[in-house]
């Protein structure tokens, strides 16, 4: 069973400098109760991909004809990209999908109480009375572990600590019982100790509510703890996709291997870190062929800068649905 399916998502931004490709032919599926991690450097298109699920990208976004985002709801499938009016979009925005952002402080309106913002959303989506919306909001705040929830309800974001704000944000996101939660780097702005609490909380809630989660981060460590499946993105393309343990233990794409090598190894702290060489190219100068070839240690001239590799299932792990987009895959003679 699928909750969300994204097919051939291609998104360009119409700018003064011309069309900039932000997401290039990305496809994936999420089942209810599944946590799907999207990893990549900044500029890899992971946030843009996530925002597409609610059509939240700015007005200059152009989706390609072939792009399809389908959300399976009880009343039948919803073609997200065909939603136009604000009323239609409410089905995904705050209705079936909720989103939490990287900066919990900045994602609450500073001069409106947390409670007002929660009640506003509940009244909009669930046609509740103010009283019922208030009761549910306080209950949700308690559920995410906020002490004195009744008091916090009437407070403003600046009066809460960082961890508590993100808990409140999670409470608000879940109060409408969405089918899918998008978490855009939800722990990046938090202290490490708080990060673990927030991640545990999110895992508990997924299990309890049975919803799908799209978890965006640049931190492979966080993904390893959280996600069931992971997609690695680079310059708007998905380069590797598979069960999180498979991908981390047997990375198939040179970029994924690079990301993993760049993580500090706690057992060999003296060993030098190996960063992925070079910088992420400007979106205005998108490399031809495989987008990663400019930084790839095993790229072959005349092949990688010409051919666009397709996502191919890995022969060794075909059962677990692990695939990557690299010409060197399944080619025993590449290195020779």
């Amino acid at each position: 069973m699928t909750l969300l399916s994204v097919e051939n998502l291609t998104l360009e931004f119409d700018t003064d400098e011309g069309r900039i490709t932000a997401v290039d032919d990305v496809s994936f599926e999420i089942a209810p109760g599944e946590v799907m991690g999207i990893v990549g450097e900044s500029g890899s298109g992971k946030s843009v991909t996530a925002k597409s699920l609610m059509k939240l990208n700015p007005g200059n976004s152009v989706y390609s004809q072939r792009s399809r985002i389908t959300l399976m709801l009880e009343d039948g499938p919803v073609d997200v990209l065909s939603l136009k009016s604000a009323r239609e979009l409410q089905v995904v925005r705050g209705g079936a999908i909720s989103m939490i952002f990287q900066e919990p402080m900045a994602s609450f309106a500073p001069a409106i109480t947390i409670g007002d913002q929660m009640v506003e959303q509940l009244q909009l989506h669930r046609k509740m009375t103010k009283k019922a919306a208030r009761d549910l909001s306080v209950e949700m705040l308690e559920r995410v572990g906020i002490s004195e929830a009744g008091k916090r309800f009437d407070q403003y974001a600046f009066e809460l600590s960082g961890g508590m704000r993100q808990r409140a944000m999670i409470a608000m996101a879940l109060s409408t019982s969405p089918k899918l939660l998008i978490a855009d780097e939800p722990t990046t702005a938090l202290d490490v100790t708080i990060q673990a609490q927030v991640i545990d909380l999110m895992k508990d809630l997924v299990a309890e509510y049975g919803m799908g989660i799209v978890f965006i981060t640049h931190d492979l460590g966080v993904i390893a703890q959280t996600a069931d499946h992971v997609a690695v993105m680079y310059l708007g393309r998905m380069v590797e996709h598979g069960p999180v343990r498979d991908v981390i233990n047997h990375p198939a794409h040179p970029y994924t291997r690079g990301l993993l090598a760049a993580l500090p190894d706690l057992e060999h702290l003296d060993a030098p870190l190996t960063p992925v060489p070079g910088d992420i190219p400007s979106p205005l100068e998108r490399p031809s062929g495989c987008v990663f070839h400019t930084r790839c240690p095993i790229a072959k001239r005349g092949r990688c800068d010409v051919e666009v590799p397709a996502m191919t299932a890995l022969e060794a792990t075909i059962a677990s649905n692990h695939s990557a987009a690299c010409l060197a895959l399944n080619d025993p003679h590449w290195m020779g």
Partner: protein
Amino acid sequence: MLQFARFAATRAAMAVFTLLLVSLIVFTLMELVPGDCAERYLAFKNTQGQSITVEDIEAERIRLGLDRPFLERWTSWLGNVFLHGDFGQSCILRMDINNLLGDKFLISLGICLAALVFAYLIAIPVGIIAATSKSPLLNNVLRFVSYLGLAMPNFLLALIIILISTVMFGDTLTGLFSKEYRDAPWSFDKLMDFLSRAWLPVLILGWSATAFALQTVRALMSDEIGKLYVTAAEARGISGARLLWRYPARHALGPIFNSLGFDLNRIFNELPIVALIMTLTEAGALLIEALARSNDQQLAGAIIFLLTASIVAVNFLTDVLLALVDPRIRKGILG
């Protein structure tokens, strides 16, 4: 509530302190002008054909109390102003400054405040629309009009309007009162007459103020709209006018409030020139007269002090109002 009263009281005390400081500066400036009031008055008499001796000047000095030390004279001036609202006598005209000013200052201030209100009544909605609209045509037109407003001096606009009205309607539209009301006591008819004429200086002063305010509102709104909490609210399904007014517009109000005092000052500074061209003898002209022509420091000091007091009062009011509207400030006060 108690804390809020304390906050208001603290702000009021700060405002009074500012005024004291201003009065000291104004009084010192009045003293810095070469020659004192006795010399200047008698020199003026001298030009009228009277012969004046050094003894006359000395006697006049003692009569005016100018022989007393600086601090004593400042505190007594201050006491008169603060306790009795009495600005003393004009140096040259030998008349009570209060009588001289009469309702002129209030009329001037009223025109400036009206121009300020006019400016923001237009700037707030138009600025918000400009910040949210993606139409390049609308934005370019607004940009052109507001740069025109910023670049074209008020007096030029005043001259153009006078020229057009004289040619087209045979009426110069100058002055603040019709002849029959000029020296009449205030009545309903006089007020109506005043209003039927005051709109033009308000419009002219408001014109460049609007252009300026429009740019401010637009910049503040664009800034707010780009913030994450607006995207977050959008992601919760909030849209249209509700999203706009409840989220970015409301949060942009604070800095707009804060700029009001500054704008009032700017408008008041432009008033004398517009008043000169439109022959509004009741407004602004007196300041030029006092400063430039007769070198009447006492009168100029009184006007500058009144203006500063008005600006301090506006700032005080906006501070208190902002504290009521913005919880970040309110909670900061309530602790």
